[in-house]
């Protein structure tokens, strides 16, 4: 079922266009990397604040409000370029363990970021014990690290 979908992706014109071009993959991946640095900054800024580091003279809510648009914008760029990278080699991805590792981490990271992490960030800072802030930061950093390490490893395998 999943495999036949991936095979269908491989038969699309978009796949043909990206994989037959000598430079398209390189350009898309460069944009993917540019967005990586932005999303890294947006995620780290708030997670460091949760941990009592970085911009700690600002309230958690303020840091979260500042970081959020950058997180959302860079995530959109990452998803769009990421889909394009996937379309260029879907069957390779199907057999790649790092790919599935990355997709699992990504799904968890997105859900966690927009539910638990967002709630914790927007809640009254003083009503919450600091341990919950720290725990949120650690889970967020681990999940996004899973996404990043998996992503880099797709390129090494196969």
């Amino acid at each position, binding site marked *: 079922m999943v495999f036949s979908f991936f095979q269908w992706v491989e038969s699309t014109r978009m796949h043909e266009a990206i994989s037959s071009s*000598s*430079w398209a993959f*390189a350009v898309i*991946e*460069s944009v993917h*990397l*540019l967005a*990586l*640095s*932005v*999303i*890294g*900054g*947006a*995620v*780290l*800024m708030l997670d*460091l604040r949760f941990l009592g*580091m*970085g*911009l*700690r*003279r*600002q309230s958690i809510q*303020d840091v979260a409000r*500042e970081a959020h*648009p*950058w997180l959302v914008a860079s995530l959109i760029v990452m998803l769009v370029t990421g889909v394009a990278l996937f379309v260029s080699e879907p069957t390779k991805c199907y057999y790649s363990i790092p790919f599935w590792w990355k997709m699992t981490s990504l799904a968890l990271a997105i859900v966690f970021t927009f539910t638990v992490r967002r709630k914790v960030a927007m809640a009254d800072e003083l009503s919450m014990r600091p341990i919950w802030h720290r725990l949120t930061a650690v889970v967020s950093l681990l999940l996004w*690290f899973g996404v*990043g*390490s998996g992503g*880099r*490893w797709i390129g*090494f395998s196969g």
Partner: protein
Amino acid sequence: MSLLPFCEWLASTSGSIALHESLYMYPLVESVHVLTLCVFVGMSVMLDVRLLGIALRKVPVAEVTDRLVPWMLAGFVVMFISGLLLFYAIPVRSYQNIFFRMKVIALVLAGANAWVFHSGVHKKVHEWGIGRTPPRKARLAGGISLFLWAFIIVCGRMIAYNWFDCDMNPGPTLRLLTGCVGKEVAGGEK
């Protein structure tokens, strides 16, 4: 003066060969190099957009530099060391790679831009840092930094491609720019 003999000597050392041929070390070093982007460039981007007056407008610039620059420096040290190791693994091919050369030039420019900012307009950050929109010199430094680091990231990614390598028989201009001499035997790339 050419650094080619030095690069050739470097390539012949046992450490370089070991790293080049290693199954896990090279990918590991490269992963560290790429993922540290989030720490170093990620924090730089936040500082740069503050300097441009786009984000963190309520946060004094001095606070952003005081609190985020240590993270940037730590990230930079890791990027620099892992970058040196990547060069050490593949010295000759990197040295004669057009993207590598552009990246090194852009790195020097980015360093100069940071130095000009810190020894110049940033010295008086306590006078202007609370304002939502920093003075022109600070905005310029932020804009230049954003552009250069984006350029450096793209060049860094492109080093992996051999389009313009010496063994691809580039034209005379490229041969000059990449320092290709005679018949080249380029080192492989992962």
